[in-house]
């Protein structure tokens, strides 16, 4: 590869980068251009033999100028996203997980958190009562009722079976539904 061709490859890259960075403050733009220029020079110095492929490889590793510019502008975006998500964090996520897995602990966290309204906290505490441990308790009672109804006529057995099946289904879905609801309330904040 001729020195002229190498210079052309590097210049094209730097020109594209400069175009991508035009909307930045001159201070940041100069800093980034300066550092990238130095990076290319140092990496080129370390190449055992400079060929078209190794030089292209070097520029590829540096990345698309558009990506570098996006990272440079990322500051604005990152700041606004921090500001909007600051209202809830690990604590609230933990509360939701524990609400189904370890109900008393989850319920306490739910009430301690300042993120939900009292109405949402009441709903979260009462539906389902006791999270999945509570649901298991309800279902074991239902099983006992089913066993008792088997002694009666067939139609009682079938009706009781259908009703209890519906209740079990609701009891299984309710906790997940409530967590999804509380999570969407978080996102709405």
């Amino acid at each position, binding site marked *: 590869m001729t020195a002229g061709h190498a210079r052309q490859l590097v210049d094209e890259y730097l020109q594209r980068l400069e175009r991508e960075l035009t909307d930045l403050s001159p201070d*940041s733009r100069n*800093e980034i251009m300066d550092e990238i220029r130095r*990076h290319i020079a140092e990496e080129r110095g370390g190449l055992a033999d400079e060929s078209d492929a190794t030089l292209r490889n070097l520029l590829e590793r*540096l990345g698309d*100028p558009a*990506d570098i510019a996006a990272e440079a502008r990322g500051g604005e975006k990152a700041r606004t996203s921090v500001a909007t998500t600051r209202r809830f964090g690990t604590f609230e996520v933990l509360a939701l997980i524990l609400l189904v897995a370890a109900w008393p602990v989850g319920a306490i966290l739910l009430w301690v958190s300042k993120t939900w309204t009292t109405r949402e906290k009441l709903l979260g505490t009462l539906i389902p009562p006791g999270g999945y441990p509570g649901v298991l308790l309800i279902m074991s009672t239902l099983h006992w009722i089913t066993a008792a109804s088997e002694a009666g006529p067939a139609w009682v057995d079938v009706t009781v079976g259908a009703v209890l099946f519906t209740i079990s289904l609701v009891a299984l879905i309710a906790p997940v539904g409530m967590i999804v609801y509380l999570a969407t309330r978080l996102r709405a904040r």
Partner: protein
Amino acid sequence: MLAMLKELPRYGGEVIQMLRARGELVVSEGTIYPLLSRMRSEGLVETEWRDTPGGAPRRYYRLSRSGQKAVAQFRDEWFRFRDSVDNIFRDGARQ
């Protein structure tokens, strides 16, 4: 990234080499530079020029006081988060 500047000031290429050595890098190595530049405009790092033997001076980045605070704060939050996850798994294993 900030934590990598905790011990001593480094220049951009050095940070990239450290990331490479840990096998952590990173699709576009060039994005390290705008990241450093942003941290500087946010006051988390400060820069100084240092001469290099037989070469042009390099821009070194070091943690500012508020950068040090940010690292300490993140570390505390991370440990608290890690401990609560540890506790959940420990309780789960016991049940």
